[in-house]
């Protein structure tokens, strides 16, 4: 068996030590980490650039659209005012109190035995229109007081389907001193005054009191 003697073992050891030098290895590792960090930074920088481009584009778009939106808002406000005004006028026209149908209905219930000498009417209120009518007149017939009473009830019955809260009450009913000629007969008279109250429009119902 041949004897093998390594005369360079010192040199080999030194070479081995140099190859496993921790300082060198750590430098390699650190360089790799630094490269990764730099790469990550550049990726982030790219993302940042894209984001800023998006932001600039969005801001430009918003700057372009904002004055249009403000102008549109002003136009919308003005139009809404006009529309509200138009609706208010329509409502005002539709909520008017119409006297002609009332007079027509009244003329239909006045019999030939009654002469209306005075009619006074007044309308108050905005949404719920309250009308107060006062009729003065002379009634005749076999029983002039009864004729006047029939007129009073006839008025209430005639107005009730069209108007709300119709009331018809006598303010006065007195026997008259004069006689009138009707159908060739002398008949007694009575003078009367009837107050009529009625409501049109939205009827406001009173809120019932709470029960304890």
């Amino acid at each position, binding site marked *: 068996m041949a004897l093998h003697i390594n005369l360079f073992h010192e040199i080999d050891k030194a070479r081995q030590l140099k190859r496993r030098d921790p300082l060198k290895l750590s430098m390699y590792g650190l360089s790799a980490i630094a490269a990764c960090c730099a790469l990550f930074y550049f990726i982030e920088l790219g993302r*940042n650039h894209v984001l800023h481009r998006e*932001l600039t584009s*969005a801001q430009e778009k918003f700057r372009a659209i904002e004055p249009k*939106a403000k102008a549109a808002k002003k136009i*919308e406000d003005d139009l809404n005012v006009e529309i509200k005004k*138009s*609706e208010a006028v329509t409502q005002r026209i539709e909520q008017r109190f119409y006297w*002609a149908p009332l007079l027509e209905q009244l003329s239909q219930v006045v019999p030939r035995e009654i002469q209306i000498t005075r*009619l006074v*009417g007044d309308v108050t209120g905005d949404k719920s229109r309250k009308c107060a009518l006062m009729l003065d007149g002379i009634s005749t017939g076999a029983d002039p007081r009864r004729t006047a009473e029939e007129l009073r009830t006839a008025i209430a019955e005639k107005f009730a389907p069209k108007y709300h809260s119709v009331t018809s009450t006598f303010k006065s009913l007195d026997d008259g001193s004069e006689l009138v000629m009707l159908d060739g007969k002398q008949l007694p008279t009575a003078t009367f005054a009837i107050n009529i109250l009625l409501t049109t429009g939205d009827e406001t119902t009173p809120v019932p009191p709470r029960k304890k």
Partner: protein
Amino acid sequence: MKLHREEIQKLFLGGLLLLGVIYSYFDMLLFPLQKRQAAARKSIEALEPEMRNAEAQIKRTEALQKAAPQKTAVIAQINTMIPEGSPVAWFPPKVADFFKRQGIEKVTSKYHSEAPEKEISGYRRLAWGLDLQKVEFVQFGNALCALENEEPLLEVTALQIDTSRDGFDSQRATLTVQNIVKQ
């Protein structure tokens, strides 16, 4: 492996340098960049609803502009019905002409008062007293009906019909009317 004193010093110095580099990398490069990114994202997110609102506002207004002529037709029509100039100048002859067409002569108009229209800005309400000295009930009823139908801006708020002293054939009517006119 045994490190020499000089090598330990180098390692310590290298470590310190490494810490400094890491601190600088994060504090001066990466974190400010990420902060800028977050701020940009936040700004974009904040702009998005505002843009949506602005676009919606424009669309809403366009739709309203299309529908507006129909919705404001009444006010446009009414504006054409109100003559120019002072109502004191045009209202009495207009009313007199109207009743004349209905066969009622001798109509006098008297200006009573004026009040602003609260709900209808730019308009006011004038109160007038109309005196119809000689009318016949049915004829008056027909005239009143025509007045209420033809003059939507006019409302009769009170009326009084009295038997004429001349006899039962004719009556005297007094109307209180309110008329809407421009400011």
